[in-house]
């Protein structure tokens, strides 16, 4: 288990390999479908993004409402491929980490290798457990989007696996290939 501080260090992520278990601690931002559409519109219109992607880690999540006294509600990852069309815009601007679930497109993977961004898989369906690793949450943009608003989170020992490393490894390709068998 590798402990990693956020924001991610460019050198530290070079040492990661697909299949590694990590615990992330520090600040990150959230965004999913509707927010990404607005990121793209902002870039197109020459406007500022609600956060500087350089060195940042982005978590694809739309949490449930927080109970009183809690930082956040259930907060597991959503399917990352829906963000594929937009991710390169952020990766090209220095995004260093993404957390989600599910495979990424070839275009996104190439962009991550070129610009130095790692993709982590969190375990969907562990949203209650992951919620306990989030110590603070604040909406920083697009509040009108509700669950899809962009948040700044503070996480502590947030568990994830390295899916796409900086060496061409891909756990979603290599893991199943290892366990594949002929039907009996």
């Amino acid at each position, binding site marked *: 288990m590798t402990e990693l501080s956020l924001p991610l260090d460019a050198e530290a992520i070079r040492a990661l390999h697909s299949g590694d278990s990590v615990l992330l601690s520090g600040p990150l931002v959230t965004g999913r479908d509707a927010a990404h559409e607005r990121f793209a519109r902002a870039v197109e219109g020459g406007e500022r993004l609600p956060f500087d992607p350089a060195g940042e880690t982005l978590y694809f999540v739309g949490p449930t409402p*927080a109970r009183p006294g809690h930082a956040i*509600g259930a907060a597991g990852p959503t399917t990352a491929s829906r963000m594929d069309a937009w991710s390169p815009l952020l990766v090209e601007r220095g995004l260093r980490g993404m957390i989600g*679930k599910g495979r990424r497109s070839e275009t996104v993977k190439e962009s991550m290798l070129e610009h130095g961004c790692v993709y982590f898989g969190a375990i969907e*369906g562990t*949203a209650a457990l992951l919620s306990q690793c989030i110590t603070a949450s604040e909406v920083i943009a697009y509040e009108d989007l509700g*669950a899809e608003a962009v948040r700044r989170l503070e996480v502590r020992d947030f568990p994830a*696996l390295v899916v796409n490393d900086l060496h061409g490894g891909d*756990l979603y390709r290599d893991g199943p290939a290892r366990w594949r068998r002929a039907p009996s």
Partner: protein
Amino acid sequence: MREIAVDDVADTVRKLCVEANHELRGDHVEALQRARDRERSPIGQEVLDRLLANAEVSARERIAFCQDTGYAVCFLEIGQDVHFTGGSLAAALDRGVAEGYREGYLRASLVRSPVDRVNTGDNTPAMVHYDLVEGDGVRLTLLVKGAGCDNMSALRMLTPAAGVAGMRKFVVETIEAAGPSASPPVTVGIGMGGTFDRAAVLAKKALTREPTGSPSPDPKLAELEAELVDAIDATGIGPAGFGGTVTTVAVHVEAYPTHIAAFPVAINLDCHSHRVRTVTL
């Protein structure tokens, strides 16, 4: 004739929404435990351990076990001797969903139109299927359906020549294409036969079979289910798609009469966060 107040229906739906999202059904926990027993990949074992731990935390903390608290799909089997009183049944179902989602701190995940995508704010409307049956009872099943796995579902109009072999191939292709996105180990609902639309509804309804993994009463279908579990597990996709020996906890197949020229097959996938509750009113 039996009278049932729609307010009672609303109240039932409210309770079911909260319960289904906070507590993983006992038989599904057992299905995940069996999956843990037969999983050989260390990462896969770790995933299943965390899913089981997550179910305990969510029930204790009264928090949703998955943040995608989904569509509220209602199957209603209504006895023809029932008379609903006190207003609109459809409105009562929506009221129950809205109240349950508010009370349970569940996420409002529906937009009013696929085009303008404005959130309805209370997770309505419920997605309702009505069946009229004999008698004076009402059977209500709530299926809370996440989009991640629903998005990976598929329907194909096969030919009779393609037959069961074609159907098996289609199932494996669908599972392979879904990979990690359907959040395995999945429950697979398959509707065979009927028309284009009938097959899709059957597939969704197949997911509600209880307990998870119980075989079809039709021996031929039960045999097919067991074969499909093996074929799906053979893909090696594994828990959360990280690779492993268990990709599905259950395949439920439902069949219906169809046309001499047709073999409709619908495959509806449900993630490991399986949320189904059935009550009789």
